[in-house]
């Protein structure tokens, strides 16, 4: 086992990883940018290295800074968390070339799966269901248009180097495809430094369901069940649960089997996630494979009792998984809410600031992962995730009630600080969510309802806003 691990991340996930390290008796090194100097993980870790300024490019994305910090502190392994360098095969290779273990899949696996268009083709060849679409990167708007015609509208354009819900656009008719192509390409170039795009059929009113896998270097490939992540705002997850409610058992098992088969086919090692889209008629298709810990991993941990980060570390140290597939069992229902420092009334604009009050929920079957504390300055430099509140209960109804209770006692305040707490509670209370009949269109529908209600409240005679989740060949690009 490693004696020292460096955590190459920040925020709640850096603390999450450092906690797992300490429980394993591993000395932990945190790295931090200047605004993170008083962060929770810096306080928690056994040692901390200042690696750069606020700009992620010069700190959390700086390979030389992180490698040097690891070498200086004698770290034998680096855990990349999620985001930043977590799915960068070059970083993984550079770690290995410096004798540092990268806690994640082998570089060549990340390389293969990081190209989303190539991964689609690879997994289709392995027998996994994929939506009709590209076999490789598109070369022109004309090709995109021709392919879209073949697979049928609506389609979705995605960045080959994308992920995490960024760099994608839904196109509903041929007239819009050229513009969407050019815009998405420009976006992809700016964000990922790679402007290649691919295209596939888009499914309205779909559910986003993903399967967690864990694989060791001794041939063990297991799944830890699925998570439903359909509550999304612009392809960003807001709430996640496990198991997925109202899903036929055969479908569930078919998705597990597909994930295990896909992981085996590509020689996966470590923790990975197979993201699927599930159609209203219960077909499922692979969307992408993530080669890292997911933000929402706690819901799987709460129902299985398995510490996914611990397994990542022990697997990276060459040990076998601590359990067999037959020993994995899911108990009860777990639900997670992402509490962001955002203003839901201003289209979820970041609302950072100094936390003058921060009292997280507690008590029975509540888990909070957060790096925030009273006096912490939520800065504008990084994402707005403030805390993940997760609950467990024997059934979904109790889990929803428990989550609402937990959110009701969560106290966050500070000048300029706004949170998604109220929005999350409204989502929890929505009849479609309560009855588990929601799809990825839920948040859009809620916005429309809010507009409608506002209109009603004002007693105005304006017509209600159009429903953006309408289907058919409606000609409006939705980002």
């Amino acid at each position, binding site marked *: 086992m490693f004696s020292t691990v460096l955590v190459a991340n920040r925020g709640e996930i850096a603390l999450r990883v450092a906690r797992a390290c300490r429980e394993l008796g591993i000395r*932990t090194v*945190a790295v931090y940018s*200047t605004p993170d*100097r008083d962060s929770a993980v*810096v*306080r*928690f*870790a*056994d*040692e*901390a*290295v*200042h*690696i*750069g*300024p606020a700009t992620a490019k*010069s*700190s959390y994305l*700086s*390979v*030389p*800074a992180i*490698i*040097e*910090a690891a070498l*200086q502190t004698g770290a034998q392994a680096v855990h990349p968390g999620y985001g930043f360098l977590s799915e960068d095969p070059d970083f993984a290779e*550079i770690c290995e070339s*410096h004798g540092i273990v990268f806690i994640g899949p082998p570089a060549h696996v990340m390389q293969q799966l990081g190209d989303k268009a190539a991964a689609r083709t690879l997994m289709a060849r392995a027998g996994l269901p994929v939506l009709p679409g590209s076999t490789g990167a598109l070369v022109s708007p004309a090709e995109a248009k021709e392919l879209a015609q073949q697979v049928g509208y609506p389609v979705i354009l995605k960045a080959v180097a994308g992920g995490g819900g960024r760099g994608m656009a839904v196109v509903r008719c041929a007239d819009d495809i050229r513009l969407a192509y050019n815009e998405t390409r420009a976006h992809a170039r700016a964000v990922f430094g790679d402007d290649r795009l691919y295209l596939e059929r888009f499914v309205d009113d779909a559910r986003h369901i993903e399967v967690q896998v864990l694989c060791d270097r001794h041939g063990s490939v297991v799944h830890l069940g699925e998570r439903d992540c359909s509550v999304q705002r612009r392809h960003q997850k807001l709430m996640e649960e496990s198991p997925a409610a109202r899903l036929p058992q055969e479908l569930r098992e078919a998705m597990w089997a597909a994930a295990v088969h896909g992981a085996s086919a590509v020689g996966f090692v470590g923790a990975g996630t197979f993201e699927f889209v599930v159609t209203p008629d219960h077909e499922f298709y692979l969307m992408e494979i993530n080669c890292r810990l997911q933000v929402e991993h706690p819901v799987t941990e709460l129902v299985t009792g398995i510490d996914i980060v611990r397994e990542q570390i022990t697997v990276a140290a060459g040990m076998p998984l601590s359990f067999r597939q037959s020993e994995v069992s899911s108990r009860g229902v777990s639900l997670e809410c992402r509490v962001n420092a955002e203003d839901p009334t201003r289209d979820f604009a970041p609302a950072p600031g100094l936390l003058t009050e921060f009292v997280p929920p507690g008590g029975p079957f509540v888990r909070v992962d957060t790096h925030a504390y009273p006096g912490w300055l939520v800065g504008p430099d990084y994402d707005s995730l403030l805390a993940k509140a997760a609950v467990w209960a024997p059934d979904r109804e109790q889990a929803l009630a428990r989550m609402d209770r937990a959110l009701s006692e969560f106290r966050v305040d500070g000048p300029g600080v706004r949170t998604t707490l109220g929005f999350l509670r409204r989502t929890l209370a929505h009849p479609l969510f309560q009855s588990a009949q929601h799809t990825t269109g839920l948040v859009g529908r809620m916005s429309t309802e809010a507009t409608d209600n506002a209109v009603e409240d004002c007693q105005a005679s304006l017509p209600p806003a159009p429903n953006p989740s309408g289907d058919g060949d409606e000609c409006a690009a939705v980002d």
Partner: protein
Amino acid sequence: MQDGQTTVEVEWPDPVHTALAPADDSPTADRESGAPESGQPDLLTYIRAPMVGTFYHASTPDAQPYVSVGDVVQPGQPVGVLEAMKMMSAITADTGGRVVEMVAPNAHPVEFDQQLIALEPVDVDTVDHS
């Protein structure tokens, strides 16, 4: 660097002490970088590390150090090199001044923004003579 449990405050540099004391194993390990010094903060300026790496006073082990205590440096003058992932980059002075302390010892790891060299202001005459 910061220890998870304790933070060691940087003491006001004492040129006499620095000049006499041999560099021990990791004298910089406990220094907190980046925090503004308390007391007389306008007296000294610091050349700081632009990134994590190993700070060298000279271009090679056998070469003369770029600068030593007492030297007057000009803005833009090379004062050391920083090695990160086998890449050497020159450290240059942003502002001029007289070197009063080589805060970071030779061939030792440094963090981002860590103080490397302390400078005190010099008379215009002195600066101009070069």
